[in-house]
């Protein structure tokens, strides 16, 4: 099967997965205790009739399966509806938040790779040297350090003491590229340290495993230059599990970095979903999680396709 056929097959399977995910998400958010009507009316709610009226207005009085069909129909016809709390269009909310999360995730993983690849490779190839110790220390510190603490520390140093970078906020890439990058530097740095540490650790350990294999010894015996062995064979083989980790990290960064978004006041998709959950804003949570699921599916597909390039023995 060619990679194109494989991609189409996976795409169709992904649609089924998304459909199943939509049912699961729809059900789970309604199982969480708490009621959006109570939240809209607040603790100062008035008459008993008010709850019923608002529930009717929001369509929450209908049986769940009718609510689901109406929501799914809207989703498929491009009408994602409104936030039941703020009344804002969900398309608008997602259009604002999703690009921010993608920008942060991709910049974060690129910088992480720029740090992790040289460190991981050098650490494995030159064991017990300064480069190796640097890789070990970086991966240990990066994994152990709490992201919010690192964020606050960066804000204190670069936003406060040095006044070199904006402490929080966001400027769109389309609006001003330079400013957008300036606002991204600190959150990206935090993400790069955390993810770079994980990737460094994986890559170093995978490289060490590959370097101890017979084919490397054989290649060396044949007199292949070390750079060629490492660059062409060892690294490529070590990348297969590493790419999987990178894929998972990107997916996580799109929706799971709420704490970093909170610290830097960088409202992305994760914060939208979290606040939606806290306020029982069902439509927002449902769409947000579906988008996250779709993002994971696409990233996994890309990772699977990369396997074939990295290892020609992989058959689709």
């Amino acid at each position, binding site marked *: 099967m060619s990679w194109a056929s494989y991609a189409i097959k996976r795409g169709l399977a992904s649609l089924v997965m998304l459909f199943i995910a939509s049912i699961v998400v729809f059900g789970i958010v309604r199982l*969480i*205790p*708490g*009621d*959006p009507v*109570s*939240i*809209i*009316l*607040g*603790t*100062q*709610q*008035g*008459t008993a*009739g*008010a*709850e019923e*009226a*608002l529930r009717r207005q929001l369509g929450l009085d209908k049986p769940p399966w009718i609510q689901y069909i109406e929501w799914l129909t809207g989703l498929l016809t491009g009408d994602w509806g409104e*936030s039941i*709390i*703020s*009344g*804002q269009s969900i398309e608008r*909310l997602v259009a*604002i938040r999703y690009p921010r999360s993608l920008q942060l995730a991709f910049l974060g993983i690129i910088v992480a790779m720029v740090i992790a690849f040289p460190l991981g490779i050098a650490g494995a190839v030159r064991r017990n040297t300064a480069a190796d110790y640097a890789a070990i220390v970086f991966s240990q510190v990066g994994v152990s350090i709490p992201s919010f603490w690192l964020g*606050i520390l960066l*804000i*204190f140093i670069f*936003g*406060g003491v040095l*006044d070199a970078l*904006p*402490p*929080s*906020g*966001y400027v769109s890439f389309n609006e001003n590229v330079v400013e957008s990058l300036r606002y991204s530097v600190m959150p990206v740095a935090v993400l790069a340290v955390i993810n770079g540490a994980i990737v460094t650790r994986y890559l170093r350990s995978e490289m060490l495993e590959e370097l101890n294999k017979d084919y490397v010894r054989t290649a060396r015996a044949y007199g292949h230059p070390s750079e060629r062995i490492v660059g062409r064979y060892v690294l490529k083989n070590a990348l297969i599990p590493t790419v999987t980790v990178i894929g998972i990290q990107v997916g996580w960064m799109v929706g799971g970095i709420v704490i970093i978004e*909170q*610290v*830097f*006041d960088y*409202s992305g998709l994760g*914060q*939208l979903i979290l*606040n939606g*959950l*806290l*306020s*029982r804003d069902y439509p927002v949570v449902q769409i947000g999680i579906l988008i996250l699921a779709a993002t994971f599916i696409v990233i996994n597909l890309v990772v699977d396709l990369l396997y074939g390039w990295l290892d020609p023995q992989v058959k689709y």
Partner: protein
Amino acid sequence: MAADSQIAIDKREREVLVTREDTGLSRRKYLAAVTALAGSPMLAGCAGDGDSGAQTGDGTETGDGDGVATDTASGEPRPGGHLRTSLVSPVNHFDLHINGLMVASIVGYQSVEKLFEPNTDLELVELLATDVSISDDGLTWDITLREGAMFHPPYERELVAEDVVANFERILDEDVGSFRSLVLSAVDSMEATGDYSLRLELAEQQASLQAGLGGYFGIPIFSPEAIEEGNIRKQPVGTGPFVFEEWTPEDQITLSAYDNYWTEDRPYVDQVTIRPIAEASVLTTELTDGNLHMLHKTPADFKSQLENDDSVTVHETDGLGYRALHVNPGSTPTDGRANGLPTTDPQVRRAVLEAVNRTAMVEIIEGGLGTPTQNYFPDDHPWHVDYTPYTVEANPERARELIGESGFSEPVPITIISASSDPVLQQLGTITRDNLSQAGFEPDLTEYDIGTWVTEAEAFRYDVNVNYFAGWFHPDGLRAWIDPDGLTQMNYETENRDRIFELFDELNSTTDKSEADPLNEELQQLMIDDAAYVPMYHPRKVRTTRNTVQDFTVHPFHLAYRLDEVWLDE
């Protein structure tokens, strides 16, 4: 530019020779042009309304910033500029008729106004209303409205009495379910008696009506067209100083100055941006870096750092609001309650209030910025009652004595609920639990997310709940908290209940303060003795501004954040 050049100023006489009407310019453009033409030498000679040290009321200012603003400021408000401020939590929606969230009101009241509002001395003064006349029997209220108050675009028409009636009718609509309907609960009928006058006929006397219309429950007057079109949840349209331009939830809110605002010259700034920033260190850095002009709430841990910063001024005053404990006296429900419902016993409830350390709460939660209390009104408030039967700091021995008198044996099980996503509520819950565990109780604290906490609190599924409130302007407000027909914050089954509700009625039947005072005193003493709903402390209001922000006044009422009064000396 051609229009601007029509403005001529005789700099020698310092008088504007051409009025705004002559130029045809908007008020804001006219003011900006006058200021530009007049130049700073004229302004520098003026005496200082913008004196940053001239805090009104009980407000004080601290920090090296004191005086700096006075030195640089001209004293004469200058129009223009973009004011950037912050809130510590995001707004959920702006339908203030049903939304009681304080941050929503703080922002919403920049665009939508009430008939009355409190001044810094906590007196109710006119806003959209200009006069109130009450009949001798207290049952007919004639309210005169301000002329020239214009609704914002796209409606842009003058506010008339029919609009106020339309808003009141929406408040009273059971399907809308506004908590503010309590303010109008005594209203039997209402009608617009003219373009600028309306009459309210009451079924019974309600001396607290004006306080109600201007306080926390005060009724914001939206454009009826905006209500009709169903937009006020995301775009409030009223007659306030700022037009609500754009809102990206959890991100930022943009307001612009309303050219046709009824208070001449206000607002001074052209634009306002409000960002929710939760992290205290980020808030502080954004302010000291100059990315924000004002902090609505100053993080207690950073107050001393800000006081030592030359570029900012810390403003503070005693607050009207309070943090409180609800100790459930009701016998239903039993879910979520400790076995035997110990808090139905008044001695157990009093033991709870003896066990908690109010001073520690102030220190830990507010960084010392607050006043421990047992009273609903702060010391200098006209309705304050000086009655403090419980120990301010924890008295575990006394708590144990009271438990012994109740007949329950130690340790008394007790359930506490709080909200994990709200730092104040969370810390109130934790401190209460720790205090109770040292005073003969076996507390079980459950921290819910805010949504579940609201649901649990409404269902009274707790023995002790924690809460806070912006404060009252009349003791009748307390009725709302405990009345089963009101906000139903608790199932108020206590021994003093009937007498307390009689006192509410008696208080409402007199506008004579000397007559009301003994009634108020008895009412509050009985409520404090009931130990079912008792304040812990009044937090101080601490706001911080950059020195370029002029004429800012910190207000004891949490919801009063008057951005139309400030101007930027930049």
